[in-house]
Every structure is written in structure tokens, then in C-alpha cells.
């Protein structure tokens, strides 16, 4: 393996899956909101301007077509992360004491961004969003195939609960995206790194 310093901040599999993920997730969010609007769980609807598909049939067409891209892309990322050591070296280990220290630093605005090395909060966020993605896939499968995958529905505590889980997992990923974008605005060079690879700092 090459010395870590010679590696770019983000290797090309991370960059490609990241941007494919952006496209797939945007489509999944927008078509999902249109599907939600057909039978809302709460007392609000998403404005048509942020939905995709135009009508329920179109939205479901998008949602069930793009789910393959999202799942394939996610699988590529996970397999690569496991095999390349990305998961082991960059995202793990996540230690409680380090997390406590970094949260303290963040709250007092002293937490620094080190290009190419994740702090404990970043590790928590990225591992957390991967877990949320898995939860979205599982709850989505439960809603899509409640008879064939009845064991999965039972795991979520019923069809209706699985719908709520799918919704809240979506909302949590949405919150992640907002924080993620705010961080990119605060540290803009991370955007360049995700585009071109970036150079590691000590």
C-alpha cells in the first residue's frame, strides 16, 4: 500500500460514487415526496416545485427506477470501502472519548478541519448516514414487498410503522445533507477535494 500522504484526500471510487449518489439521492428525495403527497402521513404536503414525476405514477416510476442506481452505487461504495481499507483507516475506529473531546472542541468553535483525516464527529456523521441509507433500503423493501418480505415488515412492527420509519430515515438523511452542505460552505476546499481528489495535509 502506498504511504497515506501520497494518496489524495478522496480516492476516485469515493468521488465517483459520491456524485452518482448526489444525482440518485436527489431523484429519490423528490419522487419520494410526490409519493408521500398522495397519502400524507402528516398535516403537510411537499410543494410541487420540489417533486419529481408530475403525478403519482410518474413519481413511482422514477422512485423504482432510480432505486436500482442508488442501491448499486451504494453497494459499490461499501464493497470498495471494505476492500480498500477506506472503512478501516478513514472511518474507523470511532472512539467515545475522541467523540466527547471533538464535540467539546466543536461547541467552543476550536475544532479544526484537517484535510484527509476525519475527526470523530465526521466519522459519526458518515457512518451514521451509511446506516441510515441501509435503514432506508430495508424499510423501502418492506413497503414495496410487504407480502413476499413479511418477515421484514414484522421486524419494523407492521406495514404502517415501516412507512413512518422510511419517512423519518429520509428526514434524517435530509438533515445530514443540510449539515453536510453547511460544512462545505464553511470549508470550501473540501468541494475541490471531492471533485479533483485534493492533497492531504498532516
Amino acid at each position, binding site marked *: 500500500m502506498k504511504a497515506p500522504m501520497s494518496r489524495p484526500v478522496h480516492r476516485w471510487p469515493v468521488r465517483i460514487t459520491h456524485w452518482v449518489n448526489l*444525482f440518485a439521492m436527489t431523484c429519490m428525495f423528490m419522487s419520494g415526496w410526490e409519493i408521500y403527497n398522495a397519502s400524507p402521513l402528516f398535516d403537510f404536503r411537499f410543494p410541487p416545485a420540489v417533486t419529481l414525476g408530475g403525478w403519482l405514477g410518474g413519481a413511482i*416510476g422514477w422512485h423504482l427506477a432510480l432505486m436500482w442506481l442508488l442501491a448499486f452505487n451504494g453497494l459499490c461504495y461499501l464493497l470498495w470501502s471494505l476492500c480498500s481499507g477506506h472503512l478501516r483507516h478513514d472511518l474507523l475506529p470511532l472512539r467515545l472519548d475522541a467523540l466527547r473531546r471533538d464535540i467539546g472542541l466543536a461547541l467552543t468553535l476550536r475544532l479544526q478541519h484537517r484535510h484527509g483525516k476525519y475527526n470523530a464527529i465526521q466519522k459519526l456523521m458518515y457512518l451514521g448516514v451509511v446506516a441510515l441509507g441501509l435503514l432506508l433500503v430495508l424499510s423501502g423493501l418492506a413497503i414495496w*414487498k410487504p407480502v*413476499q418480505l413479511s418477515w421484514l415488515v414484522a421486524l419494523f412492527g407492521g406495514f404502517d410503522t415501516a412507512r413512518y420509519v422510511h419517512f423519518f430515515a429520509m428526514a434524517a438523511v435530509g438533515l445530514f445533507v443540510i449539515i453536510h452542505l453547511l460544512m462545505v460552505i464553511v470549508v470550501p476546499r473540501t468541494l475541490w477535494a471531492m471533485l479533483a481528489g485534493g*492533497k492531504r*495535509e498532516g
Partner: protein
Amino acid sequence: MKDKKPSPRAPTLEPDQKKQLVNLQRRLLLRSGLTLGGVAMLTGCNLQDGDRVDKVLWAMSRWNDRVQAWLFNGQRLAQTYRPDQITHPFPFNAYYPEYNVPEVDLSGYQLEVSGKVAKTAPWTLEQLQRLPQQSQITRLICIEGWSAIGQWGGVPLRVFLQHVGADLNARYVGFKCADRYYSSIDMATALHPQTILALDFAGKALPAEYGYPLRLRVPTKLGFKNAKHIAAIFVSDTNPGGYWEDQGYNWFSGI
């Protein structure tokens, strides 16, 4: 911020190369910006305009049909429920408002049978009622996301198909309805033990709003595949499509 240490390994770039690199980065940024812009442009693609994106979406829907047919287990039963779990009131749902529910004239009602069957004689309600009956309390799941539990009774479709001498190796069973609705299902689903031609709802003859006098009740499909006011059944090897299916709802729509 840490001081930048010049990395010994970093290659020094010629001014021209540096410019190229900057241009490349700018192009990539532009392209990623266009990703979101592109999605905004896609919002018009809705499976109904026949443009290039719509064709891809239709092709993916056919792919999903195949995956679902592969996933479908003809023996796995949908969950059944206790009488106290039944949804009251059971929601009305159709492609028209409730005041347009058709009034089917019972005296002239006949169920027509055609296609790949041995006996094409039409059936009266009385004849259907004399066939073996089955009752079940299952959940109807609407494509919109809501669901409701109800009790349906009637003739298992498998029994009916055997009585009319249907070719059980044919691919599709189609339904034409008194309210001009039409739909179709795959043969594997038609033969599923819980797929019934329902004659009654909650122990009584089907009310008009739930599909009087005969409807399909198939707990392994989404609600819109449960055709109401059935007037004709046919067996075919050509996909008959359906009212919603032809507009873009996924044809298989198994659950």
C-alpha cells in the same frame, strides 16, 4: 490552520499544466452544478410524454416486472387478520368520485368468459355462488400508501379457471369491468390460493362502492389491480395491460 509543508513528492507543474488543471476543476464543478439543474429539467418526465427519459423509465418498469415475477412466491400467504382488526369505515377508492359508482343491473348480469378457455359459456351470479367459497380478512394496500383491512368472500380464481377449462400455462388473466375499468394479472398470481373472485364484503353481498356484483380480491397485489364490477374474464398470452397500467403504474405491482 497548519503551515503548508512543501511535499517532496509533489510534482512541480508547468504554468500551462496548472492552467489546464484549473480548467479541468472548473469544468467538473460546472458539471456537478448541472446535476441538480438536470434534475430540475427532468421534473417534466412523467411516463406520459414519450420522450427519451420516459422510454428509459418504461424499460425500467418492465425490468421491475421481471424482478417481481421472480420474487413472487405462489405459495406464500398474505397475512390474515382478526375480525376486530377490520378497518371501519373501509375507504372508497376508484378512478372516479363515489357518486359515479355504476349501477349494475342484476337481472341482466352475466360474467363473460373468453380467450384460452375450454368453456366460454357466460356465468350467472347464482352459478358462481354454487362454486366452493372462501372467506378471508386481509389488508388491501393502495399504491398511494394507505392500507385498510377488510373481509372478502367468494370463489377462488384458481377454482373458477379450472371450471372453465382455462389453459393454466397461459401467461395472463384479464378483466373487463362494468365501469369501463380494465386490468390484468399474471397466471402465477391468478392461481395463488388467496386470489378470489369476491362476491361479498364483510359477510354481505358486495356493496356498489366496493365493486358489486363481482370483484377481484388479490392480497398479493396493490389495490388498483383488484378490479371491481367485473363483467368479463379472459385468458391470454398477450399482456392485456390495464387502465392505470397503460398510463404508467407498474404492471406487475406485486406486494
